[in-house]
């Protein structure tokens, strides 16, 4: 075994991959949110449609988006690998456990939280990304240029209360995942320092509330607009 494969087969190497991919996904969430908030602009989706088209045609963004899929895949694969080996390390559970007195619920249930996020991702990608790439989309014309009208399928989806509920609930799970994951990733990278760790923890706690809340706000507002 070469030193590289040996490292990534070690528990620490696998955690390193989880932390790096997790931090990349966190960065992606910010960019994704900034783009999506344009859905709430009062221009019938003009800015959003132009933005979506420009993202899809930008070669740099295409590379990043392939990387993004790869990182989600690595994050998911290693979450399965780690969760399985962690279960194997404790095959017999305690009859009585007071784990809630020594650790947070989210930290003990990252696998469950991640699985719900994954299910949501599948629904989300099928509904929007797949439609945008391969579906029959209505078009809109701005300044004589024809654009795919993604805004139309988004607002149609968000007129369905069931869809809105799925989104809002999923964001709750994302919030819990981040409430542990954000600071945890820094600890995994070995970045634990008396000066910076308290700040990282505060930023992480804020991030875990604000980012999912803003994501959840979009379908809620768009649903209210259709009433």
């Amino acid at each position, binding site marked *: 075994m070469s030193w590289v494969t040996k490292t990534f087969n070690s*528990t620490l190497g696998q955690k390193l991959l989880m932390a790096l991919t997790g931090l990349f996904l966190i960065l992606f969430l910010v960019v994704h949110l900034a783009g999506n908030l344009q859905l709430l602009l009062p221009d019938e989706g003009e800015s959003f449609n132009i933005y979506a088209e420009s993202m899809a045609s930008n070669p740099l963004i295409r590379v990043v988006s392939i990387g993004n899929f790869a990182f989600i895949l690595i994050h998911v694969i290693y979450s399965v690998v780690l969760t399985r080996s*962690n279960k194997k390390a404790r095959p017999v559970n305690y009859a009585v456990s007071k784990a809630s007195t020594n650790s947070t619920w989210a930290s003990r249930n990252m696998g469950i939280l991640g699985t719900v996020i994954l299910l949501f991702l599948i629904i989300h990608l099928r509904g929007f990304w797949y439609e945008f790439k391969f579906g029959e989309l209505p078009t809109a014309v701005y300044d004589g240029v024809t654009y795919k009208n993604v805004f139309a399928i988004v607002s149609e989806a968000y007129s369905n209360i069931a869809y809105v509920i799925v989104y809002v609930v999923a964001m709750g799970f994302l919030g819990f995942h981040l409430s542990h994951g954000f600071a945890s990733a820094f600890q995994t990278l070995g970045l634990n320092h008396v000066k910076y760790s308290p700040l990282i923890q505060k930023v992480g706690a804020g991030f875990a509330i604000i980012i999912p809340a803003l994501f959840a706000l979009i379908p809620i507002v768009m649903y209210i607009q259709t009433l």
Partner: protein
Amino acid sequence: MNLTLKIWRQKNQSDKGGFKEYKVSDISKDMSFLEMLDVLNEQLSDKGEDPVHFDHDCREGICGMCSLHINGKPHGPLQTTTCQLHMRSFNDGETITIEPWRATAFPVMKDLVVDRSSFDRIIQAGGYVSVNTGGVPDANEIPIPKRIADEAFDAATCIGCGACVAACKNASAMLFTSAKISQLAMLPQGQVERKERAEKMIAQMDAEGFGACTNTGACSAECPKGISLTNIARMNREYFSAVVSSENV
């Protein structure tokens, strides 16, 4: 006080094992938890029954030999060793559930006794320093800043009890291993084998079947010596920098 004890009994490593209930009465609040078990064992011996096997040695909180998962927590309700836990932490009439540490790398030998020699093998893999033979060196010959000496000493207070493994949902030995790596990595004496140590001890830790770290912090919260999570971050740095820079291909 009168108590009901629900204790894990298991004849040997291959036995399936199960809980058995016992009653003890007239227990003094000033007894240690182990003394309370001694009372139970005398009762059992008098009746010709097999006493409950449990580990202990110093009964002073310094050797790390005592274990026991008591009412859902390693070493019971306080952040201390079981030998330093007293019956005043319990209520009269209470039912106390006592289980062995649960981990693949800590197989149950009998009743509440687990085999923690996996910890010894982690130490053997690299938890040592090479020293020159010859004359005794002068004390304080090598200057070490007080803050570093204190931090290394804090890490060195780990008594190898395994409560960190017992508390962790992944039965991970990261807190123990990181304390043992840290205490040497911070000192000048530990520099010679520094990279090799990190690589070998972590390889051994994985080979023993301990889980990975999810950074839940349960280990440190239950550690009788309050070993800090900063040691785990330091171990990660030691390991990552060792694998990219050592000559071990």
